[in-house]
């Protein structure tokens, strides 16, 4: 199970990496084509099957929604409010990302150091993802609140709950990914275990860590929306989704636009991690 969550992060098969420049061109083209195809299919389906706006609003009206003014026409543009909400969600997600990332790395380091702890805890790290977090999100928020955590932190903790898992698994694999002979080599230098960690295990684990962080990035956005949606919040994409769903019948485009923003938010975060990977691991990093 662990392996493939990691695999989700890759999209370019190893064999085709050699023909990268060519591929990238054809890929950009293919993506653009697919976007065009979707738009055409969307609008023609609407036309052909007489789909009402309630089922499928026009793409144009979804995009135009961002330019409407709120508060009865005198407030800020809806797009601006959406940025505000997206920022709140991103703030929770980033905190959760960092918390989950740190926890995941720590767990992986501990597991590498102690097989006993690994055997004792790893099954529950995997099992933790079986818990329907949405169902217990309200209990988490109330429980954390009882312990004194502010609301945004409770949501960040839910995000961290979804984030730490891929990081633990990915980092664990990464720390064990050092080439077979490199450990005896370090021993031959009489390297201390902390030297082995900093000079061998950690650098070797970076590509794995980043693959995991890419998954974690999107998971943290999902986590913070899961925290906002059932529990409510002052701001956030989750709040917009609830509100937009409530008023869907009169303004369906709001909900579609909110989903669009949520997806873009996830993509941007993902892209930011890819960028960080290129900067840190180097240009040979996989997408």
């Amino acid at each position: 199970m662990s392996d493939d969550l990691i695999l989700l992060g890759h999209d370019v098969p190893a064999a085709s990496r050699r023909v990268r420049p060519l591929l990238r061109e054809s890929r950009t083209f293919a993506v653009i084509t697919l976007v065009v195809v979707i738009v055409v299919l969307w609008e023609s389906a609407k036309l052909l099957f007489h789909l009402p706006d309630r089922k499928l609003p026009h793409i144009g009206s979804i995009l135009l929604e961002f330019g409407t003014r709120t508060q009865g026409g005198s407030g800020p543009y809806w797009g601006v409010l959406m940025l505000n909400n997206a920022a709140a969600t991103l703030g929770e997600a980033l905190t959760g990302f960092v918390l989950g990332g740190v926890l995941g790395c720590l767990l992986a380091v501990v597991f590498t150091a102690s097989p006993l702890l690994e055997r004792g805890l790893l099954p529950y790290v995997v099992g933790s993802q079986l818990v329907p977090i949405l169902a217990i999100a309200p209990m988490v928020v109330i429980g954390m609140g009882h312990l004194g955590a502010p609301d945004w932190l409770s949501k960040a903790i839910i995000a961290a709950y979804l984030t730490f898992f891929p990081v633990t698994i990915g980092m664990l694999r990464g720390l064990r990914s050092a080439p077979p002979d490199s450990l005896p080599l370090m021993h031959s230098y009489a390297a201390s275990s902390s030297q082995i960690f900093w000079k061998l295990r950690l650098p070797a684990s970076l590509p794995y860590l980043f693959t995991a962080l890419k998954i974690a990035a999107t998971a943290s956005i999902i986590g913070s929306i899961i925290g906002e949606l059932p529990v409510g919040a002052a701001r956030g994409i989750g709040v917009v989704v609830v509100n937009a769903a409530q008023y869907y019948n009169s303004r369906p485009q709001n909900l579609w636009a909110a989903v669009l923003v949520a997806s873009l938010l996830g993509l941007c975060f993902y892209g930011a991690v890819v960028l960080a990977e290129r900067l840190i691991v180097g240009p040979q990093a996989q997408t």
Partner: protein
Amino acid sequence: MAVVQANLKQLSPAARGRAFAWRWGPALATLLLVLVLWEVGVRLFHVAVYLLPPPSLIGARLLERGSFLLGIGLYTFEEALWGFIIGCSLGAAVAVLSVRWRWIAHGLLPFAVASNAVPIIALAPLVGIWFGSTTQGSKIVIVAIMTFFPTLLNTYRGLLSPAPEALELMHSYAATSTQSFLKLRVPAALPFLFNALKISATLSIIGAIVSEFFGGPLKALGVYITSQAGIGHYAEAWAAIVVACGLGMAFYLVIVVAERLVMPWNTTGES
């Protein structure tokens, strides 16, 4: 490596017992420790039931309402199963097409990767509008979407996994492309496919429960959890969550067993 595996089967019962204890002992010990600490902590610090009911109370509810919980669990499992079947078979099918016609892959795979970024929970109200938020249809669709992309990506990678030499070998036998596909790519993709199925198994249960959050009959696990938590019946809600976890684990284990049966050669596929 091969020798080690051969030896494991020849171990004496006592030695096998020790190996088993070493494999699972720490995990069981952790479980016991957590349960005891939880129970003692809740009682010692007088933690309110609405924050965290003690495991004994959850266990009592589980026994008391066992058959009822299992019944609503099966209703939810039914949604998960259908979504799983549809999502995984579509994912595998599209992966096959993508390997055959690479432009499909080039157009679709970035979307498959991007789809991880789409919070399915935000999409759920829309799926409800299309397929009925209180019927099983929308749940099946959501589970299918959730399982489609991991299956697609993994199967695609699996189909591309054979080494160039393995393909050249087929080429040297003048094998038809159908033959190399069926005899090389498909079997090579099986471990990848099963990995996807294992993720999808747990995802499908989670997905069904998440989508029940957006409406459904009272006999659904997700509806039961939220409705019980809403009126302060926390032990009941937790008991239902335990059932949900159990279902996810059982589904996962079924796939693991199926994997062992289908791929007897693959003895290292455990995680």
